[in-house]
């Protein structure tokens, strides 16, 4: 890039060192060809700088904000849930599970005989007859399996959607 136009564009854009700038200024002042070219490029430069920007439609900002608002309507449902509520629910289920395990182990007949367990908590565990509750247990397990499969399917579908996006 060392022809006259490149040198002059560099000068016009202000990409020259102070020394180069001085040399080019002298060239413009003393050389007719440089002077004419400089004026031609300056005219072009002014025209380029005066180019007009295009105007989008009147509803442009509204359309953008509408999309953002619609997106945000969905987000808070997920994002604004109080984490303490989640923690509370988790603790409740953990306590329930622990209590259930305690009841089960307390009533389990390890040697084929009933082994009363004294938890030294001032109460005796209730005597639950599991043979009578068998259909209930089976129903409960069946429900758990169906629920588990449903949740697994939902998770897989969501994963697939994320991958497609």
């Amino acid at each position: 890039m060392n022809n006259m136009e490149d040198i002059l564009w560099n000068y016009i854009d202000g990409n020259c060192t102070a020394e180069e700038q001085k040399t080019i200024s002298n060239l413009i002042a003393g050389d007719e060809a440089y002077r004419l070219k400089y004026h031609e490029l300056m005219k072009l430069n002014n025209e380029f700088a005066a180019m007009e920007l295009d105007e989008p439609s009147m509803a442009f900002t509204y359309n953008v904000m509408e999309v953002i608002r619609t997106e945000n309507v969905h987000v808070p449902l997920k994002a604004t849930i109080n984490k303490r509520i989640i923690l509370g629910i988790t603790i409740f289920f953990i306590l329930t599970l622990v209590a259930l395990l305690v009841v089960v182990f307390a009533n389990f007949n390890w040697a084929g005989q009933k082994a009363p367990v004294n938890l030294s908590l001032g109460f005796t565990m209730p005597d639950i007859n599991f043979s009578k509750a068998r259909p209930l247990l089976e129903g409960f397990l069946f429900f758990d399996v169906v629920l588990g499969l449903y949740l697994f399917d939902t998770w897989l579908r969501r994963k697939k959607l994320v991958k497609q996006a």
Partner: protein
Amino acid sequence: MQSKLSDIELIQQTLAGDQGAYADLVKRHQRFVFTLAMRFAKVREDAEEIAQDCFIKAFRSLASFQGQAKFTTWLYSIVYTTSMTFLRKKRVATDSIDDENTFIQVEETASAYDINNAENRSRSFYLNQAIEQLLPDDAAIITLFYKGEQSLEEIAVALGMEANTIKVKLFRARQRLKEKLERNLKHEARELI
């Protein structure tokens, strides 16, 4: 009426939950973003779709804006990548993005466009017409340099190129624009005679 707050202040307000601040940011930059999108898409409807997409993407990733570069430089880089993706999808670009033949059709259409109104055309009309005939990259660099208040280094960041490459491209783009402008004006003079 547009907000007098700086871009950074408006971004901070947006991040604090004020969507109105983001609307001000959109209003402030929509004309330039739209113009830049027009340089790539050439069609108003497509350019509007690209520009809208850019502002939505910018909103989603606003929290990741570090503030090290100007907001506009960051925004224009989104415009560039979105436009390039759009062009790829439309199968206009990829291999032929640097192929001038791709735009011969556009050039011919533009030259023949609205001949009867020649006397009403201003020099700025011819300039816009000549810019439309440039390659998307050239048109974008010229627009960013003259209207986007971006330095060569900032344009390089926005377009993901070296500053020296941008400098060379700017020289060439100006040269091409000058040629096209002269050609269009000569063509128009012939039409008037």
